[in-house]
Each structure stands twice: as C-alpha cells, then as structure tokens.
C-alpha cells in the first residue's frame, strides 16, 4: 500500500511525451504562422501537408527498400533506415511542390484581396479533397515506416525515452533553430519579415514579393513534412494524421503570436505538454479538446499571443 502511495509524484514521463508532441506541433505551427503572417490567411490545408509528406516519404522509402535491402536496415539504435532519410529529404521537396501547386492553381487567384475569406473556404475544400485523395490511394489502414520495436531507456525521474524520440527532438530543435536563423540573419528572412509587415513597402525597397511567397510555401510545407515524418516514425501513418493536428497547430500559432517562429514553437510545447498531462489525468480520449481550450483561453485573455504585435 505504501509503495503504491509512493507513486507518480515525480513521474515526469508526461513531460517527455509532451515535449515530443510539442515539437511535432511546433514544426507544423511554424508553417501555419508564417503562412498567416506573410500570405494573410489561415491555411486549413496545412494538415494535409503533414499527411502528404509522411505518405510521400513512405512511398519513397518503400521504393528504395525494394531496390536495395540496405535502405531498410535500421541505422544504429534507431528504427528506420537510410531509405527513410533520403526519401524524407525528397518528401520535403515534394511537399513544397504540392504547396506551390495548390497556390498556383487555387489560392493565388483568391487571396488577392487582403482579408478575403474565400481563400480560407477554398483551403478547407482543398483539405477535404487532399485528405480523401490520400485515403483513396492508400486506404485508411495505418501504415508504418518500419516494424522495428524500440526499447525505452530510462533517463531518471521516471522518464523513459526511445532512441527515436531523442533523435527526433534534437532534429526538431535543429530545424527550429535553422528557421530562426534564417528569419533573423539572412536576406530572405528579412524579406519575409518585411513582407509580413508591409508588402507594399517591401516592394518599394526591392523585395520580390512573389518570390518570397514561394519561399514561404516551401519552408512551411517542408517543416510540415518533417512533422509528418516524425509522427510516422513515432506513432503511425494515417490519412487523417495531419488533419487531427490542425487544431493544435492553430492553437499553438495563435498562442505564440502570429508571425513568430519562436512563439509557434513555444506554443507547440505548451499545447503538447498540456495534452500529455491531460492524457495522464483525464484520459487520452479528451486530448483533442485541450488545444481548443487553450485557443479559447488565448482569445479571451490575450488574442495577440505571447510574441504577437499588439492590436
């Protein structure tokens, strides 16, 4: 009895799970926040970039695996092989391509007026169509990058983590840092910030806004693909995987402040950790409502978010 009372006082496993989920949410939220800041609309199809990225990578790694068995050999202590890595890089490019194609065919013609809500409707429709297309091609059966089981290593304080999880947290941190450096130290990053603040002035100082729009789509989509690969490695691949993350993406982006990359990451971590603690306390089935509660709280208390520009 005493030993069971001695229980999870310091079980910080939920923290580890939360940070992991938060990293994935953060990567997607960055794309959402950049699209919102620079292109001025909430892209409801962003979740589909996540799913598409995962499936494209799955296809690629399966292809590579069929060509040579070496590609499926797990790398070191991780569950996936070089096939996934290579296919993942290609997947990022392909997802970027999908985003550009969608913009070219659909969004570009509808987003010309600032504040136009039609483009959001279109993104919702595109999201349904894409999700269903994926379901049509791959069916709704869950898929996996590999069947390798991973052993969780204890880190202390009741936290256990698998090599995959550790690696992916590091990679996510790396990607976010790269994004931050891109935005603050490079010409492209300054141009992106300029366009998000004042597109007309950006043109006046020589920024090719059309080119920045393309860069925004590509980087947002590539990060979404990375998030999709992470989810695919750590959990599973399903047609709805990205859509289920859409609300957490929006909540994280709004919590962090629209346009802020560090904000999107922090927002993601908050949402992830909140969800993980909810799973511990009130049960996993309620996880989806957490993001919504956070969203409502932010909108009621401080709609501009943590790093957002005041209204």
């Amino acid at each position, binding site marked *: 009895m005493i030993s069971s009372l001695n229980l999870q006082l310091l079980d910080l496993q939920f923290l580890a799970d939360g940070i992991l989920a938060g990293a994935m949410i953060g990567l997607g939220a960055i794309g959402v926040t950049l699209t919102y800041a620079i292109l001025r609309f909430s892209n409801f199809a962003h979740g589909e970039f996540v799913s598409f990225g995962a499936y494209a990578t799955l296809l690629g790694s399966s292809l590579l695996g069929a060509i040579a068995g070496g590609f499926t050999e797990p790398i070191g202590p991780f569950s996936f092989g070089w096939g996934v890595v290579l296919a993942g890089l290609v997947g990022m490019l392909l997802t970027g391509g999908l985003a550009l194609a969608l913009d070219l065919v659909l969004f570009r013609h509808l987003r010309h007026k600032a504040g136009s809500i039609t483009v959001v409707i279109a993104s919702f429709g595109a999201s349904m169509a894409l999700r269903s297309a994926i379901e049509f091609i791959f069916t709704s059966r869950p898929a996996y990058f590999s069947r390798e089981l991973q052993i969780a290593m204890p880190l202390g304080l009741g936290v256990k983590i698998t090599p995959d999880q550790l690696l992916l947290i590091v990679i996510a941190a790396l990607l976010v840092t790269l994004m931050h450096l891109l935005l603050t130290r490079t010409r492209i990053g300054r141009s992106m910030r300029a366009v998000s603040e004042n597109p007309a002035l950006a043109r006046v100082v020589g920024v090719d806004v059309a080119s920045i729009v393309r860069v925004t789509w590509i980087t947002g989509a590539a990060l979404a693909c990375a998030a999709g690969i992470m989810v695919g490695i750590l959990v599973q691949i399903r047609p709805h995987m990205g859509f289920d993350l859409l*609300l957490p993406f*929006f909540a994280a982006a709004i919590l962090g402040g629209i346009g802020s990359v560090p904000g999107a990451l922090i927002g993601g971590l908050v949402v992830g950790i909140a969800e993980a603690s909810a799973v511990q306390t009130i049960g996993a089935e309620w996880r989806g409502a957490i993001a919504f509660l956070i969203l409502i709280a932010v909108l009621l208390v401080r709609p501009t978010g943590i790093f957002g520009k005041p209204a």
Partner: protein
Amino acid sequence: MTVDLLGQGLVAYGSFFLATALSYAIICLGLNLQWGQTGLFNVGVAGFVAIGAYASALVTTPATSAHLAGYGFPIPIGWLIAMVAAGTASAFVGAVTLRLRADYLAITTFGIAVTIHLVALNAQRLTGGPFGIGFIPRPFAELAETPLAFSLANLALIVGVLTIVYLGLERLARSPWGRVLRAIREEEAAAVSLGKNASLYRLQAFALGGAVMGLGGAIQAHFIGFIAPDNYQSSLTFQVWTMLIIGGSGNNRGAILGAVLIWGIWSVSGTGIAAIFPPEQQARAAALQIVAIGVLLSATLLFRPRGLIGELATVSRHIDGGAELEAERQASP
C-alpha cells in the same frame, strides 16, 4: 398491382430524398444568414448541427440509462430547445471571436466542431457515446405502418418548416434590422460609425444562423430516428458549404437550390458507388466522391463565385472584393 407498388416505392423514395435534401436546406439557410448576409465564415457547421440534434434527441427520448436527460418532451419542444442550445453556443463563439480577425472565427468554429464531436463520442453517459442515441420519436409515428403516408407526411412537415424559416429569413432581411446588417456588410464605414453596435448585429446574425442550423439538425434527427457522433464531422460542414457556394451564396433560394442539387449529386454518386464497387472498395470510392466534390467547389470559387443563382452585387463584396462587379461595369456600355 406491381406497377402500383413500384409507383408507391418511387414516391416513398422520392419523398425521403426530398425530405433529407430540404433538411439540409434548412441548415444551409442558417449558414447563409451567417455567410451570405453577414460575411462570417463558420467552419464548424457540423458542431452546431450536432448540438441541435443531440439537444432535441436528449430531451424527447424516453428515460434510459444509455444517456442523460430522456424527459420525453414533445417533438416541437425538442426542436425549440435545439434552437436555443445551438443559438447559445453560437452566441458564445461569436462573443469571443467577432471582435477579432475573421480567420479567428473560422478557427474557433472549427475547434468547436472538433470538440463537440469529441464530447459526443466520449461522454458516454451524457450522449450515448459512439452508439449514439436511438429511438428518437419521429413525427407522425402513428403512420409508420403505411410507409407512403408516413414519408409524405414527414415531407409535408419539413416543407412546412422550411417555408416558415425561409419566409422568416426573407422578412428579416427586408426589415430595418436586415437593412442595418446589409449596410454593415457592404460598407465598412457604416460599420465603423455604428461602433460597437456593428459587432452586436453580427453577433445576433451569427447566433440566429446557428439556431437555424440547430433546428435543421433536430429535424434530421427526428426524421431518421437515430443519431451518432460520426454523422457530425467535417464532411458534413463540407457538404453544407458546397451546397451554399454552388447554389448561390447570399441568396436564400440559392441555399435551397444548392442543397437539393448537391444532395442529389451526393445520393446518385453514392448509389452508383454502391452498385459499381465491391463492398471492400466502397470506402475508397466514397473518398473519391469527396475529391470530386472538392474539385467542384474549388472550380466554383474560381470561376463562378456567385454560384448558380447568387446575386452578383450581394456576393462580390466578400468573395472578390468588388473586382468582379467592377469588371462587369466595365464590360457593359
């Protein structure tokens, strides 16, 4: 004799089809009030429909351990409660987000729909969980023995409700209240000069639209007699939006036309899928159906944003900022 039975069967099927289509039309009318007449983008239609359906179902079913409430109220009371519940939820969402960016309303309504679905699915003692709610009292239940009379009576009822809602909304649009709403939608300056009151008008429109959606949900629930959480997902929102956009947004008749048309396309293609594809492939084919409808919606937004019978003037403000209207003015002598 067989011809007679066939005729009866067709009529029964036809009235079932029409009744369902018109129940969607009611939901569409609610959406049109929010979007066509007020310019608000509600991505969570399914959530408000669900609130209406569940509210009415919960209070009109007999007491049971499968879910909460079960007061056995009469159907009209159930429908009234459905409208109040959905309207209140809409008012809440509107109060939180209407003063913020338009996108934030979209995101919040999306979140509400996801959360409602989650609650419906998991709060088993409240809502019956994944099993849903059954034995919902159906109008004209005493006619259930004669399918033809039953279908026709229910159809008549739905047509009646639809007519009342349609006339009511049309009346409202022409009333002083409606004129203020139109002014707000078309002239931002008017909105600014009204100050806070502009938000109040929008809130009222949003809440009323939500209430109508709830009514539609309740009507559907009582028509079928059974509801489950899976009925109220993003595909429902998608269907209703497609109906409104293709039929003609900003236009109540467009809403009704779109509902019948899209429901027709959906049913026909659904039947086609069931007939052509083997059972194990039907889920995939259904996915393709959605892809096709999604492409249809996108094409409409691109090439004919006013839909089939939407009026250009009322729609162009939201959809393309007046450029199409301007282009039309240019083209005429």
